[in-house]
């Protein structure tokens, strides 16, 4: 096998924590430097929460593993400061095509509308994603990745979590206020603590072959049911960065995983697919089975949080693994930061389960349904599957039933206790709990994107409509909020031409359209870019109440705080208000 690239090696370094007389204390310790743990560490550092990330290895992922990174993940990476590098390196795609036997039965466009900064998906090998996240983490103060640091014991105490960590220099101890466990599907820490992840095992095996070749297939997701080159089974083709292609062959439950991994077995399968004269080299081969399962609680102890595959697992069809894990940390980190910073009560942390368990269930449901379609159990299920595919070729209704994977979209946290239900009439998709839609805007005469201005802390988005300025009552309410030191960053979206340097100009009208906004519409956006509340105008008490609810407090109007109290972070962007 060829190695298309050499993985970076991150040398073990002795930490001063290993020489202390007492165990060193950190606000947060993260276990597992995969995409989820790295995202958590970066996000914590951006929220000024000092943290340590422990990993038992000293390099990035061996083999491509997760390859499909969804639009929402890229938007989170943008907020973390490394989205553009991922997109530049990755293969952008929006189109999926489905074949049955010899024929294409239908195609789907995952991003059918324009006006979004990020595509539906990029394909990028997990080793690149991890490398770029490591680089980003290293550029930040406040986080430190410790390689060759393996957690061997966890003792959750009432006031801190105690860890024992094994290193090449021997063991040492540390404590933390909160532990984030992102150590993967097998999760050693979950086992140490005696928690289970339970669900359904699927009786099927799949072969992943990553091949290096020059080929001119377009950057699309191609899925075959029962193709002539792999009869009776399915095959999936994805293009990755640097001429690496992912081919995923369904093998059936009876296949011998060790036998199927041998190049003498793999190469003929690929030749049957690509043709006898195809030139390629194998980079990575793996045979896998999968499960759909989750832990009963992702916060099984008050100070311990599980994220990513350690907490929940799905089949790979739908790209809902890594993508949902990154949404976990996106959801968790601002809450930990707010509680550690004294800006929110500890009760806010209960919303991690309240929001991420329904999201995990949604992913498990979609993934299970896809798997039932791809690997039908029994003859009758297979008949329905084949009947659907046969009809789909000619009859449009059946295309919507074909399920080769329902691809990852972010969960709308519609049942969240942090949401303030609409009081005013609104249409559209930006309901409380929804992840914010992007839209093209202009800032100071140059092109920009709405999402670049949302999140990191609570953001108040005020839509000005076509007229410059705002009604007097709204202006007074905003003044009162600002005077009260309410920790909200203000963003103004206008429709007009030149509104001065601070206003985002919605030149194409898409921001107003996607948020069902008119002059005076006001959205309160969470630090993770989900909608907390929205109104048709600004009322000081209503905003304070919604902010209190969104930070886990009892939703009653509070007395104004003094200016400067509880300001979220040092990275606030000052926004000045247009004269009105």
């Amino acid at each position, binding site marked *: 096998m060829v190695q298309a690239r050499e993985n970076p090696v991150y040398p073990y370094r002795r930490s001063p924590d290993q020489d202390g007389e007492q165990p060193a204390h950190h606000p947060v310790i993260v276990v597992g430097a995969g995409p989820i743990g790295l995202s958590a560490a970066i996000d914590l550092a951006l929220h000024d929460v000092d943290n340590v990330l422990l990993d038992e290895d000293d390099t990035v992922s061996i083999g491509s593993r997760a390859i499909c990174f969804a639009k929402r993940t890229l938007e989170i990476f943008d907020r973390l400061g490394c989205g553009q590098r991922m997109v530049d390196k990755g293969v952008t795609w929006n189109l999926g095509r489905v074949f049955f036997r010899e024929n294409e039965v239908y195609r789907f466009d995952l991003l059918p509308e324009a006006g979004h900064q990020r595509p539906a998906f990029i394909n990028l090998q997990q080793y690149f994603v991890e490398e770029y996240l490591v680089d980003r983490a290293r550029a930040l103060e406040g986080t430190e990745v410790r390689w060759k640091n393996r957690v061997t014991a966890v003792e959750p105490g009432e006031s801190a979590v105690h860890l024992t960590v094994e290193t090449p220099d021997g063991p040492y101890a540390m404590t933390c206020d909160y532990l984030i466990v992102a150590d993967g599907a097998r999760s050693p820490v979950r086992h140490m603590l005696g928690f289970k992840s339970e669900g359904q095992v699927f009786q099927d095996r799949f072969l992943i072959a990553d091949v290096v070749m020059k080929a001119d297939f377009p950057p699309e997701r191609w899925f075959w049911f029962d193709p002539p080159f792999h009869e009776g089974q399915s095959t999936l083709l994805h293009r990755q960065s640097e001429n690496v292609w992912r081919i995923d062959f369904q093998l059936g439950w009876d296949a011998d995983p060790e036998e199927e991994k041998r190049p003498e077995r793999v190469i003929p399968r690929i030749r049957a697919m690509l043709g006898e004269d195809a030139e390629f080299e194998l980079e990575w081969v793996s045979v896998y089975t999968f499960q759909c399962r989750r832990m009963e609680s992702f916060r099984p102890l008050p100070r311990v949080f599980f994220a990513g595959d350690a907490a929940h697992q799905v089949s790979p069809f739908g790209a809902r693994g890594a993508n949902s894990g990154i949404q976990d940390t996106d959801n968790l980190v601002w809450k930990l930061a707010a509680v550690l910073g004294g800006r929110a009560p500890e009760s806010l942390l209960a919303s991690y389960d309240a929001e991420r368990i329904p999201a995990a*269930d949604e992913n498990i*449901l979609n993934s299970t349904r896809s798997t039932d379609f791809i690997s039908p159990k029994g*003859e*009758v299920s297979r*008949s*329905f599957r*084949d*009947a*659907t595919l*046969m*009809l789909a070729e000619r*009859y449009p*209704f*059946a295309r919507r*039933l074909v399920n080769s994977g329902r691809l990852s979209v972010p969960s709308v946290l519609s049942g969240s206790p942090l949401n303030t239900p609409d009081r005013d009439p609104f249409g559209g998709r930006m309901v409380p709990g929804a992840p914010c839609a992007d839209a093209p805007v202009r800032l100071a005469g140059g092109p920009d994107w709405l999402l670049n201005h949302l999140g990191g802390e609570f953001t108040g988005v005020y839509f000005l409509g076509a007229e410059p300025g705002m009604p007097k009552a709204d202006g007074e309410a905003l003044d009162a909020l600002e005077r009260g030191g309410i920790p909200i960053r203000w963003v103004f979206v206008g429709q007009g031409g030149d509104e001065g340097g601070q206003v985002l100009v919605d030149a194409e009208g898409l921001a107003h359209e996607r948020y069902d906004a008119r002059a005076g519409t006001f959205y309160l956006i969470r630090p993770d870019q989900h909608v907390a509340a929205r109104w048709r105008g600004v009322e000081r008490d209503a905003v304070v109440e919604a902010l209190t609810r969104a930070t886990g407090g009892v939703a009653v109007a509070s007395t104004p705080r003094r200016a400067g109290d509880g300001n979220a972070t040092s990275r606030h962007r000052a926004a000045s208000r247009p004269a009105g």
Partner: protein
Amino acid sequence: METQHLDIELRLDRPDDFYEALVDMHRGLDEAQSRLVNAKLILLLSNQVGDLAVLREAMAVAREDVLGPDSETELPPQP
């Protein structure tokens, strides 16, 4: 079972012609082919009906009595 959505009164305008056509649809097919044709027919008719409440009730009625008189006839709970 009692139905709320599914019409259990006769709606077919020519019942005997329909039944004959149903049996004829399978002429010359082996079991696997017949199963496939049945599956296609169910999908086509389900799309014609459209309403999931009606379809779920029809599925429950279809299962009724198949597993014996004392067995559970309800479909498993839906997520």
